[in-house]
């Protein structure tokens, strides 16, 4: 399985890392070994389904790049036209990022890129190499402690069907990074790009306010 991720068989894999953040060859190889091992233990998701080799044949050449996801450097073969949502879901096994519309309307695919929320369905993976990508899977602490927004979502019963929840949480975390004490109205505007067809907005906002630790109206059920 690791064989598929080591870049063999590809002409001149391009690791386009700016000098300021350059990784030594030694560090790089260590990183590849470490992340491949992690992926292997997570199952076969990394190499299997989706945009695989054949697609390369049909749609241009996959290039390997080093993607910084959730604090790890993950080597991954990426097509020129591949969206970040597809890379995350079908190559890195990070299926917490959802595809609700695949065209920038719903926000279920929201991820943070350098702490700013983006729709990963509308972001080309090649455009975000060297950037720090955080998905819902990257919010828990090293020992599985929930992020305060995640815990607040549980306490306030934020999710209903749960499909938009990862995107809502990522947007809320990005908001609190930029504005740790938002008003409820600021939170509402910050999350406005995340649709919830269940309509659980009120409880999602309760959770954001709870996570922000603000005294402002939390549950008034």
């Amino acid at each position: 399985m690791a064989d598929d991720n080591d870049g063999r068989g590809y002409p001149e894999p391009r690791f386009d890392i700016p000098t300021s953040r350059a990784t030594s060859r030694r560090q790089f190889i260590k990183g590849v070994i470490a992340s491949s091992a992690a992926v292997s233990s997570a199952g076969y998701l990394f190499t299997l389904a989706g945009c695989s080799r054949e697609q390369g044949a049909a749609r241009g050449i996959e290039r390997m790049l080093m993607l910084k996801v959730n604090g790890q450097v993950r080597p991954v073969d990426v097509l020129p036209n591949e969206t970040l949502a597809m890379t995350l879901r079908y190559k890195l096994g990070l299926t917490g990022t959802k595809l609700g519309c695949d065209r920038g309307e719903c926000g279920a695919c929201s991820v943070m890129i350098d702490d700013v929320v983006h729709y990963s369905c509308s972001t080309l993976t090649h455009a975000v190499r060297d950037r720090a990508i955080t998905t819902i899977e990257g919010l828990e602490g090293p020992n599985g402690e929930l992020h305060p927004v995640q815990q607040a979502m549980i306490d306030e019963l934020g999710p209903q069907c749960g499909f938009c929840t990862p995107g809502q949480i990522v947007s809320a975390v990005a908001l609190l990074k930029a504005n740790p004490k938002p008003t409820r109205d600021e939170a509402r505007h910050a999350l406005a790009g995340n649709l919830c067809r269940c309509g659980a907005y009120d409880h999602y906002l309760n959770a954001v306010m709870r996570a922000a630790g603000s005294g402002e109206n939390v549950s008034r059920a």
Partner: protein
Amino acid sequence: MAHDLLLGKNFTPPDVKAKVTGRAKYAEDFRVDGMVFCKLLTSPYPHARVTGIDPSAALAMPGVHGVLTADDVPSFPPPQDPILTNEPLYVGQPILAVAADTEELAAEALERIKVTYEELPFCVDPLASLFPGGAEARTNGNVANPGVDLKSFKWSAKDFANAADGQLPTGAATTEWSFGDVDAGLKSAKLVLDESFVTAGLSHHSLEPRTALAYWQNGKCVVHASSQSQSFPVPGVARLIGIEPQDLAFVAEFCGGGFGSKGGAYPIVAVPAHFAKKINRPVMMRISRHEEYYVGSARAGFQGRIKIGFRADGRVTAIDLFIVQENGPNTGFNDWLSAADAVSLVYQPPAMRFRGVPVLTNTPPRGPQRGPGQNQIAAAIEPLIDKAARQLGVDRVAIRKINAPDDSAKLGAMQGGVTSAHLKDALERGAERFGWTSRLARSGKKTGSKVTGIGVGSAFHPAGGNGFDGLVRLATDGKLYIHTGVGNLGTYSHTVTSRVAAEVLKMNWDNCVVVRGDSRLHLPWNNGQFGSNTSFTMTRTNFAAATDAVAKLKEIAAQDLGGAPEDYEIGNETVYSRSDPQKKLTYAAAAQRAIDLGGKFDGHAVADNLNAMTKASAAGVAGTGLIGVAKDSLPRTGTVPALAAGFIEIELDLETGKFAIVDYLGVADCGTVLHPQGLATQTKSGAVMGIGLATLERHIFDPQNGLPGTVGLLQARPPSYLDVPATMATDAVGVADPQNPVGAKGIGEPVQGCAAAALLCAISDALGGHYFNRTPVVTDMIVNAAAGRAQSHKPLQVNTA
């Protein structure tokens, strides 16, 4: 018997952590070795016949595994919704599927498949189809519904000519019922309103498109589906695949929203199963958002006319209702009939006549959507109740209270009874908490271009059934495993209703495990998660199963420790002697004894009246503990009404047509509250959908070409954070329903209808009594009304922008 150990208390549902960490796996999140992707080729025409399919160029592509057409799948008698078709009846109807190593390759292959069509006549307006010579949606008819045979049905030109301008013509009906003396009731009335109205069809737009993954293993088919129900769809999905239910493994642990559209078996779910069989590989069918607008179901639209007579005090004397339902091209759903029942219940008319016609259109198939019929009609009729109140000089809460159903209420053609009804209490409680009277003083108050509107609305849905099975297992580890066939549509009712079994057995909740989400986990036959029924129906089944377990515990104790079963009581996860509490068995020990005794105690012998699915599941867990398994045979007489009242204050901008909701309060009559936090979020989120139904969401079809204009979230407009208030309030009447062992009734649906109604009433209030007789009321309609301009649509026109 008090039920206050667990019920009425908040808890952390076992599946919520997976939802906040991204670990919850929906259908598209599964991967199987060798999995390929399929994509659908859909009709570009609203109605056509496929005259030829040439897939050779696609099949020649490396990595393409095959094509699945209508000829490869079972067909069902029209007007049932087919899996694939050679006679597409709406733009976007799936004709064939192609499978390839990757989705992109499948998409490329689709473009190389040559399909030729013969275009056929089509119709996107029911009235046009009823007109003599009007186009019909199918080659063999233009009306159909469950209970209405597919046939050609026309009104006469005279029927149309008899209608005044803007008035719904009323010709023959396919269905008609009445009770009481309608003519006398209207004649004796102080005021008679005669109003025509339109409610738009609209999509469900569940956020998870109905993606499915299927593969075959040892003759059994595994389907990962997007389903709001768990046990209920199994027989239907098996039928679509052409296998026996026991040969289907149905995985539906998580579902990204259904709202009625994923309650039972729907045809497209069978495509990957058939394809996987044909090409002998696992097949993932990833449905796109665009496709979801075609195959994802939609609410039926209405063109209607109502005559309502009122006494001077606002009491309704008689109702005459006619509904033309825009039915989509297939069987559709019985919204129109439910709408009539709702009117008969919410206003308790002493006399009523209903007539209706379900007319086929070449638009996406219609299915139940949250309060199907009840919520459209609430949005259509409630503003007219306001209109009458205004003309009679009666308060708008008072006119609803004087007509509201109570425990003696009657419903529908047969005037059957109800189990309990407290709409009057909900209206009173809400009016007091909302400060109705003091807020009314602000009604119509203008500040610059903004004007205040106050509204109240009420709605109903039948909310409970019976006759399903419960299955619980006390294991030798001392834990209670509650097997539930309830689906995961996001209400947490799978666990809320399971807690009834824990309550009856006086279990510590930490020692309970809810077993669900995969038909291979030995689940009982349960109703689907639709129709607001789960709270009522499934509390009964779990009560029955747990009661069976308690009886068995006492029997075992009596056998082992002496005396009769009646001498024993349960508590602290033991069964003990009333006279000598030291004589006891722990649940863990009793579970071991059940296994030793076998027979009925450990599930080897079960009651004959159980459903085959439950019997198979009981057999699957037999010998693993003390098995409580029973059919809900508790008595039920009458309809179980879920009722709700909504109160709203808005600030409407006369220049832009936009409004801000200042406050919203929803009050539920759902019997005993089982899960306060769950009720609160349902009441508020139902209101969010109500805001969408009232003011945002609708189908748009181009009448010339039958092309859809709403195939994206931005066009079809489900509400966002900014369309709804930043805070909302909820309350509940909280009077137990006497026909449920824990007093519960459902509530999920009327909490939408009451909000839609209240908002429309508030808009009309802000406009000083302008009634649109149409949903949704979009901003340009408000601007036109405020400026005294004519609307851009004709009064009865449908599918308008």
